């Protein structure tokens, strides 16, 4: 349990207008169902943890 360095590896969002660029790849999806589905697929691929920032945005974090 040493110091954790978390890093955002991907962002999944339904709100295109919030985008301001940044350091992580962004996946824009249409609705809530697709949001969850995309995040699940990405989580399995990246072995990362999915966290909910708010209802429209999920981030995948490598701990």
């Amino acid at each position, binding site marked *: 349990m040493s110091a954790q360095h978390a890093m955002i590896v991907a962002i999944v969002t339904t709100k295109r207008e919030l985008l301001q660029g940044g350091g992580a790849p962004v996946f824009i999806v249409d609705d809530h169902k697709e949001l969850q589905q995309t995040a699940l697929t990405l989580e399995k691929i990246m072995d990362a*943890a999915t966290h909910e920032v708010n209802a429209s945005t999920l981030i995948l974090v490598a*701990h």
Partner: protein
Amino acid sequence: MQYLLPVIMGVLFGFISRLTLLRTDFRQYPTYPQGRIIHLSFGFIAAFIGAVAIPAVLESDWTAVTFLGLAATQFRDVRKMERETLEKIDEDELVKRGTPFIEGMAQAFESRNYLVMFTGLVTSLFSVYSIWLGIVSGIVMLFIVRKNMASNVLLTIAQISEGKIHFDGPTLYVDTIVIKNVGLEESRKVIMEKAVGVIVTPNNENSIVTLSHLGQRQAILHQVATVLGAYLDSGEPAFVPLAKRDLEDGRIALFIMPREKDFEQIQTVIEHVPILDNAVRMPRKADKGK
């Protein structure tokens, strides 16, 4: 020749004490049989060194005595050896032991060799005067050694009770203590189904500090996962067991996903987690000017 019997007595009781100290239980450590052979051989050497010390002194063989001191320092390597092995193994452990736990185990292995040496020494000392006295002292030493082996368990410093697992939006709680944020609805469903929440309430100020130690908490999680299994694989960070602390009162909330979701078993397992020597603090004994 007059010292042959005392030395044999010393070696015998020293070796018996190593045997009683070496228990391969459910944790399967030391691994059977290779690990046991290593430690029994070390124990035999330690017993022998301890047993010949007194005859060497009585014979005024000072060179032999200094060589014994030299041999004793070799046992420091036992700790190093155990630490390295355990650290290597820990890398591939699903729920890690944690460095403080490993350090405690390694220290135990080293100290037990010294206990064996001491048993051999005391037994041979008394055997020089009378064989019967030697046997009695050997048996007394076995009891002392056994008493030394038992470490304190969590039961003595804390109360263990069940905590309710629930979600507030994406945030996972055990009772009132925040554990983490879970983004996937599917993971939340699995967690609600399989997870068990445990609240560890420390008994006093000392135990609050002991339980706050990350190594102690990791040791608890490791023990639960070893005995009751873990619903976990590599690359599934959502299900990794966690221990979080209530900053107000020092309670520890455990989020675990055992294969056996029976709280009574979980409680018993957690109650018998050893308290790590390295985590113990005694702030109540310190002078705080009160």
